[in-house]
């Protein structure tokens, strides 16, 4: 990769440079289907209001437990059936996508911003700052993520934005550890020394010379983290400390579906799970590909 030579002078990104950076998208092993699925889920999340045939939070009690349309008793009015309150499952899945997309992306970006910033500061400044940040990182990494998230959720109470903050607090350490390691080797490089000689302040060096070189790793970690974050959110909602009812979230739908699993109402548990799987598997496949493409050092991660 020729990024190092680009960064020294940091010329403005001309359109052709942008094109050359994005050229990897045309490669033949690009995971097209996972990317399309993620794109589709994002579109569904954005346009949920227009796509959902029914109100996801208000059902009709006369239409409880309708199976999907292809089973006996199902109607075309409720394509994928209804739940215990007579709410349309398809509409709830569509609005559930919105929760997963919002929580997934904002939590990953939040964790990434905090983790990358602290990783750069820790690696570049070194000394006691590094010691403090890294000891904290080690300790928080020792707490199993789901357990830590459950603990925080139990303190602050359920809400979608609380979940975003909690997931950010739980997962920033993953970025900080890796980014710090990269900064340690970057700061010995010629272009950083030149920048010091040229009289750049520490902040300028970290912001303009170090950050552009670690952003690839942050993106790779973020993509791989997306799946983990979505599963954690679903787990919290499933346990009743995530997104509060009656809002539609996939994890919450699974928790509701569990009640009527034993009588064979499979659609209430199987369908939301399929949505989670599609989204997480797509994110993981895309992340795997990005990891190999952008950052050979992370292949063992």
């Amino acid at each position, binding site marked *: 990769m020729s990024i190092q030579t680009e960064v020294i002078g940091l010329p403005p990104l001309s359109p052709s440079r942008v094109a050359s950076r994005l050229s990897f998208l045309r490669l033949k092993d690009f995971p097209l289907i996972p990317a399309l699925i993620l794109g589709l889920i994002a579109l569904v999340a954005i346009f949920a209001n227009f796509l959902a045939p029914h109100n996801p939070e208000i059902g009709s009690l006369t239409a409880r437990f309708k199976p999907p349309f292809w089973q006996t008793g199902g109607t075309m009015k409720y394509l994928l059936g209804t739940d215990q309150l007579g709410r349309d499952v398809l509409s709830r899945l569509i609005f559930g996508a919105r929760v997963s997309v919002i929580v997934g992306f904002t939590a990953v970006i939040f964790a990434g911003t905090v983790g990358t910033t602290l990783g750069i500061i820790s690696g570049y400044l070194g000394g006691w700052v590094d010691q403090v940040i890294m*000891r*904290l990182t*080690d*300790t*928080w990494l*020792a*707490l*199993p*993520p*789901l*357990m*830590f998230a*459950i*603990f*925080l959720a*139990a*303190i*602050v109470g359920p809400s979608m934005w609380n979940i975003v903050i909690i997931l950010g607090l739980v997962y920033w350490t993953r970025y900080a550890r890796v980014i710090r390691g990269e900064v340690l080797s970057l700061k010995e490089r010629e272009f950083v020394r030149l920048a010091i000689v040229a009289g750049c302040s520490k902040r300028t060096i970290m912001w303009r010379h170090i950050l552009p070189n670690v952003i690839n790793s942050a993106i790779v970690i973020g993509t791989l983290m997306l*799946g983990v974050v979505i*599963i954690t959110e*679903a*787990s919290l909602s*499933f*346990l*009743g*400390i995530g997104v509060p009812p009656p809002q539609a979230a996939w*994890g919450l739908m*699974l928790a509701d*579906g*569990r009640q009527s*699993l*034993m*009588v*064979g109402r*499979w659609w209430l*548990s*199987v369908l*939301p*799970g399929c949505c*989670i*799987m599609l989204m*997480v*598997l797509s994110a*993981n*496949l895309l992340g*795997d590909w990005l990891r190999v493409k952008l950052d050979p050092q992370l292949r*063992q991660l």
Partner: protein
Amino acid sequence: MKRYIGRRTAYCLLSLFLLSLTIFFFVRVTGDPATLLVEPGASEADIAAIHHQFGLDKPLWVQYGIFVANLAHGDLGKSFYYRTPVMELYLSRLPNSLYLATVAMAFSLIIGIPTGVLASVRVGRFWDRAGKTFTLLGLSLPPFWVGLVLILVFSVYLGWLPSSGAGTPLHLIMPAFALGWYFAAAHMRLTRSSMLEVLGSEYVKLARLKGLPQSLVIAKHAFKNALIPVLTLAGINLVIMVNVATVVEVVFAWPGIGRLLYEGITFRDFPVVQGVVLMGGAMIVIVNLVIDILYAVIDPRIRLES
């Protein structure tokens, strides 16, 4: 050697200190901890009593001192719901969690190691791809959903396995598989990369030059050595499994630590939640220390490096 172990132990103690500080800090920064420590529906007088009883009217650093002193005695407080010390509850559930985690680990290794070995021998070919897909699928499925689908198929439709509870080995199969599959990907990947590293080493080349058959080279020379890092990871993951089984234990009503944590949430039994999380973090910090020391004992390069 002694210096190395001393330094590792100091780090471990520092981590435990930061862990207690983290838990202490989060409980207090989000509001009055009395509202968490008091039972739902308590009166003003009760809250004042709690303030006094737990020393919440004292300065923060004194409060922290009391908190740590209690922890050092193994006192995690008393459960509101069960009216017994949290430590007792925890220890009574721990064997169940270890039991589940051990069987789940067995499943995970049964899936992960053979697929990893096959993948390393057939890089980029069918088995490599199939193994990767299978384990990636395990990583992408929420374990509790795998549990729900297993119940649907094997309990509701087929009626082969009990859907929840504990007691017979049959109760263990589904939760252990749901938990184990999630971890299989990590074991498969490490087995694969570890095998690839060993297969490229000099002594494997020598074994091949001697004309040993491929199967013998892989099974005897490569596999045994490639297994060391995998088993280390399995050791750490076993402890992690004990602590992340919450959702699976809830789905199958398995009476382990995860279920205790869930009960803590649903009954708003905060001492239980705090105790389980503290114990989980401490367990992992200590296991990391043990592994560091074991590595130093086994491998002189590590202890001489420092």
